[in-house]
């Protein structure tokens, strides 16, 4: 045991990253707990990602609107696109058969954009990356804005005349937003 500890601290001292931990017990050194080997600061494996590499794939959108592209949309234009590209699976009024998208007045608790989605930005992000299911990635940013406006309008969340853009979309108030809470369970004898 003593020998291996000695060996380990020798290695630690020789590695530049771990100088700051000289004299610290090995199990107290964070890097050693995560990794069993003494690692160099970097391996210099991989090539730098260029702005073009990142731009090609970086399509995600944050709840504050970060990542939203230029352009704007409205529910009227959205309806025409929806009928052509979405209604076959989601129904003319967003009633299904595939995932119901529009709030059902008869069943107000059914999970829909209007009753269950906490952020309007998620809708733009998801339609752009994953829909239509049979041709994901085929929509222009413009079409996605229109479709997002149409679905928010159909759920009664924006006016029929509203214009959606990178500023107004994150500001749309979503009824389910206050309902969401993060998991606070950490094990132990409680069932929650």
């Amino acid at each position, binding site marked *: 045991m003593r020998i291996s500890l000695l060996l380990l601290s020798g290695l630690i001292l020789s590695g530049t990253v771990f100088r700051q931990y000289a004299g610290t017990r090995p199990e107290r050194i964070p890097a050693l707990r995560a990794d069993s080997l003494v690692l160099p600061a970097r391996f210099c494996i991989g090539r*730098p990602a260029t702005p073009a590499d990142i731009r090609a*794939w970086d399509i995600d959108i944050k709840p504050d609107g970060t990542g939203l592209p230029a352009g704007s949309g409205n529910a009227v234009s959205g309806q025409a696109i929806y009928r052509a590209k979405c209604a076959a699976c989601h129904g003319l009024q967003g009633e299904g058969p595939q995932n119901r998208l529009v709030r059902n007045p008869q069943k107000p608790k059914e999970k829909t954009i209007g009753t269950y989605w906490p952020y309007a930005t998620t809708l733009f992000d998801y339609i752009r*990356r994953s829909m239509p299911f049979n041709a994901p990635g085929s929509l222009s940013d413009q079409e996605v804005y229109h479709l997002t406006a149409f679905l928010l309008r159909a759920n009664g969340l924006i006016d029929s005349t509203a214009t959606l853009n990178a500023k107004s979309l994150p500001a749309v108030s979503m009824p389910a937003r206050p309902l969401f809470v993060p998991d606070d369970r950490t094990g132990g004898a409680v069932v929650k």
Partner: protein
Amino acid sequence: MATAAVAILKTSFAKAVQTGVPVSFFKVDDPAKVPGTPPGEIGTRSHFEKLIKKPSDISSRSPLQDFHGIITPSDLHFERHHNGVPAIDPATYKLVIHGMVERPVVFTLADLKRFPGVSRIAFLECSGNFRSGKEELSPQDICGLTSQSEWTGVRLSTLFREVGVRPGASWFLAEGGDAALMTRSIPVTKGWDDAIIAYAQNGEALRPEQGYPVRLFLPGWEGNTNVKWLRRLELGDSPWQTREETSKYTEGIRDGKIRQFSFDMDARSIITFPAFPATVERGWIEIKGLAWSGRGKVRKVEISTNGGKTWAIAELQEPVLDKAHVRFRYLWHWNGTETVISSRVTDDTGYTQPTMQQLLAARGPEMGGYHLNPVTGWLLKPDGRVLHKPESWR
């Protein structure tokens, strides 16, 4: 017999050996004289063994009742996809890490394999892994969306150091390269803790259905966060609120609240023998099954053979690994009268697998369908049939 003789003729050596041996030499009643498969490029399962997954359009379930060990054969690992399985060429595969890092980097598959590696055996379970409602359900039907493998890859912490994660980064987005470009937000702490960028499963490259060539593997965490066909990690300072962490993979709890980021898989167990569709005879029965916890190790498994009135300790088969399926067994003498048998696990945080009634009492009438891990009962009929004891909660 003619067919068996044809099979062996495939290799030239066997052909030489067999020349002149009359087909009538192979006696049907002597298994020693019935040729099986010759040495091959890949092994085969005995054609007497019918191990099959149960597929739907979006998932496929592991035949838990047919397993004898803790490792799920890779071709029988459960599947859940959000828009099919992509065919990714490993030669052009790349992983981009960017966002709140000092150095955005592109890694090829060969790059990832050059880093110091790590392997661990751990389960992977879909958080929507519960079915009930009728008696004719097997363990595969009830909870076949859990499987276990040895996962090999590079620690995410190693890559985090490589790109220089900035101190303020608290979440990262993991994006898959499937048609859905599926995304989940993951706390950076998990990346430093035990996350693996996995390129191998049970000693060989990942199966396409498991994310070939690279997936994120988060020990103990709900299946969906273990993003397959991983192509991009973006470091940031808050979650992205993607569709899979808002509209899906969230569950109704009390007071109309909706719980999200329920990452840990709660401790769970199930008896896989005797279980539907098996039948049993009175006498000695070794009750066997699987137990696991996403929060740590299985501490104990208890068995009830009288509908939950009393419980006795089952034997745990080594190895009992952290965040891993463990096998348990319990020897029991059945006198042939109708009874319900069930198992319940306690993990090393002290959490004991609840009943459906306990879950309902805790989460309320709006309880969602995710993260359900109730004690599962099997009804033994005097005629030897074993039936699922259905739960009703909706």
